[in-house]
């Protein structure tokens, strides 16, 4: 185990823990407003202070973690569920027109800046967590399709695949039984990185008002709400900002650590 992985795991599980605990307990109900108690700085009662409606920021951060994780997780899930089979199919039909169509379509999606696609989708279909998930999911598809195809292509040239073909296995069976397990490591590492990007994307979308709608707390919208109050209540922006930074940092460190752990070639090269 390396230090990156440990620190990454620690930060990520902290966020995950906050999200899970928020289902059963938060210090205060996260939607309850108490306007006379607004804009308190962190104190013993409200550990992270209160926002402009007097809501407890600690509770909002906990529930916001839930929103971020849910959106990013499902979005990465969509990307994997569609992208990986596409990549496997393209590799199995390498050089053929199926491969060509799949990869060019992926290029098309890839060519758009991801956040612009997300804004486009949510602007057309309306703002909300579900549409944010779909939007972030869509730009995850080509990432997974490419990485799967790339790794699968080199595998298809290997002797054990040849053996499977000689044994009479179909392309689909080979892809599932031999290729997929061998690209899994790569997918886990990429999935972690995409997950952190998904959290950033969710924060970005809700910052511009296209993510989860109030009263569902979201780190990005907490930042947006804090914008005009930064000059006299900086904790309103600092706290959700730090939450986003630490989560993304944690996931990236974890991704790096996992890659070192799971990818033997890299480990050999480094040592």
């Amino acid at each position, binding site marked *: 185990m390396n230090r990156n992985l440990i620190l990454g795991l620690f930060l990520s599980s902290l966020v995950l823990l906050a999200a899970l605990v928020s289902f059963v307990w938060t210090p205060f109900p996260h939607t309850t407003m108490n*306007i006379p108690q607004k804009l308190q700085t962190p104190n013993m009662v409200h550990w992270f202070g209160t926002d402009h409606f007097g809501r407890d920021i600690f509770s909002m951060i906990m529930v916001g973690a839930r929103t971020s994780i849910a959106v990013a997780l499902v979005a990465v899930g969509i990307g994997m569920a569609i992208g990986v089979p596409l990549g496997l199919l393209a590799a199995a039909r390498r050089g053929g027109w199926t491969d060509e169509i799949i990869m060019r379509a992926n290029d098309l999606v890839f060519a758009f800046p991801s956040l612009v696609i997300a804004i486009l989708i949510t602007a057309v279909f309306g703002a909300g967590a579900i549409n944010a998930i779909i939007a972030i999911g869509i730009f995850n598809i080509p990432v997974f399709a490419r990485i799967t195809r790339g790794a699968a292509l080199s595998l298809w040239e290997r002797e054990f695949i040849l053996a499977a073909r000689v044994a009479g296995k179909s392309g689909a069976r080979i892809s599932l039984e031999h290729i997929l397990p061998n690209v899994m490591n790569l997918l886990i590492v990429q999935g972690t990185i995409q997950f952190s990007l998904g959290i950033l994307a969710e924060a970005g979308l809700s910052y511009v008002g296209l993510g989860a709608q109030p009263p569902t707390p979201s780190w990005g919208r907490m930042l947006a709400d804090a914008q*005009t*109050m930064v*000059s*006299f209540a900086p904790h309103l922006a600092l706290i959700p900002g730090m939450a986003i930074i630490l989560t993304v940092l944690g996931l990236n460190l974890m991704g790096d650590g996992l890659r070192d752990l799971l990818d033997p070639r890299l480990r050999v090269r480094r040592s």
Partner: protein
Amino acid sequence: MRQFSKLVFASAIALAAGMGIAQAQGSLTVAMQLEPPHLDPTSAAAGAIDSVTYSNIFEGLTRFMGDGSVVPGLAESWEISDDGLTYTFKLHDGVKFHDGTTMDAEDVKFSLDRARAEDSANAQKALFAGITDVTVVDPLTVKVTLSEPNGNFLFNLAWGDAVIVAPESIENIKTNPIGTGAFKFSDWVQGDKIDIVRNPDYWGTPAILESATFKFISDPTAAFAAVMAEDVDVFTGFPAPENLPQFEADPRFQVLVGSTEGETILAINNKQPPFDQLKVREALAHAIDRQAIIDGAMFGYGTPIGTHFAPHNPAYVDLTGMSAYDPELSKKLLAEAGFPDGFETTLYLPPPSYARRGGEIIAAQLAEVGIKAEIINVEWAQWLESVFRGKNFGLTIVSHTEPMDIGIYARPDYYFQYDNPDFQGLMKRLNETTDPDQRTMLLQNAQRMISDDYVNGYLFQLAALTVAKVGVQGLWANAPTQATDLTAVSWAK
């Protein structure tokens, strides 16, 4: 020698300072949130047009002053016939439009006929509905005949929608407005600013400022930064009330807090079930804690209202008690109406913070009594399309900034769809009444009627928030109409 150099130094500073003042005296940069779509106040409802043009570029026969009173404008005086049907206006002599043409009775006839025409694009056509005839008596006298007496007629003529325009310049009025005001339109950089310059040939008291620039800054954070950096001299309708204490504490700035004609309401779609039931609307009204909204959304700026009427108006009746915050009563009323577990509805919120923040608070308050209001944030264009015109909404929050606009409740096709023949009759009687005491009584009855019917949730009167550099004087603190009247504004010497 040392004394001498000190003297030179001191006078140099004095000179520099003096020059600074002299330069600043010439111009003023006024920022506001919304940019007008075009510059013809007589063919669009957008208040941003009047914010630039009212009294600065265009003038009407009468005009509003900063305290809301109506005084003579282009009309020097008038006579009202005994039956209240004929108004004979005597126009000021020697009034010229900015293009050099003379403003006379023909222009008045043109403007009024254009506003009341069948195909008129005027946003407030109702203001002119009672006019049956406009006759030019001589170049400086014009006679207006009404179908029935209208106690509001001189008030109506003071609106930005009733300004006098010239047939010679009407074609390009949207991009090159030619009026009679103390300022002339100079330049418009779309998306950024509009420049106006002093009209040296103005018929009345000329403007003090040499020129003025209107800058449009929609983002509240940018608005705060622009004022703090002194990029703008004045910000009218400052969008972030939470920042005002900082300006108040800063010796560089002055904060003007006045009243507007903006009744901020939780508008209810009166035709959409379950809001067609009086009990449900009453329950809604009791579920709302106004003070929490004023404190939470407006940081304390705003006056609670209990009906659709401005509290600074002498005819105002305080009816806030009719809809006092009482969640228990609200729950009881909901149960009586057949919704013991509440119901679901939509809450459309346009961009201003009174709506977005107020909406979040209202949604939380409604949730307390079991009403689940789904928040839908919309841009203005979308709001006009689906809420105002499409009437496809349950609830929405908006501030009605037109002066004396209780008459909108007599329009059954208006977006909140209140259809009460009694109220319509009351408004008809009001229009036919000229006696001030009678009018006050009718207006008070009207306020009570809509309060009794719980037509909308009445929240608060929007405050007029202006931030200006110290030294800017003559600004309107109140906003009796949408206007940024710069004709009397100057820098303190």
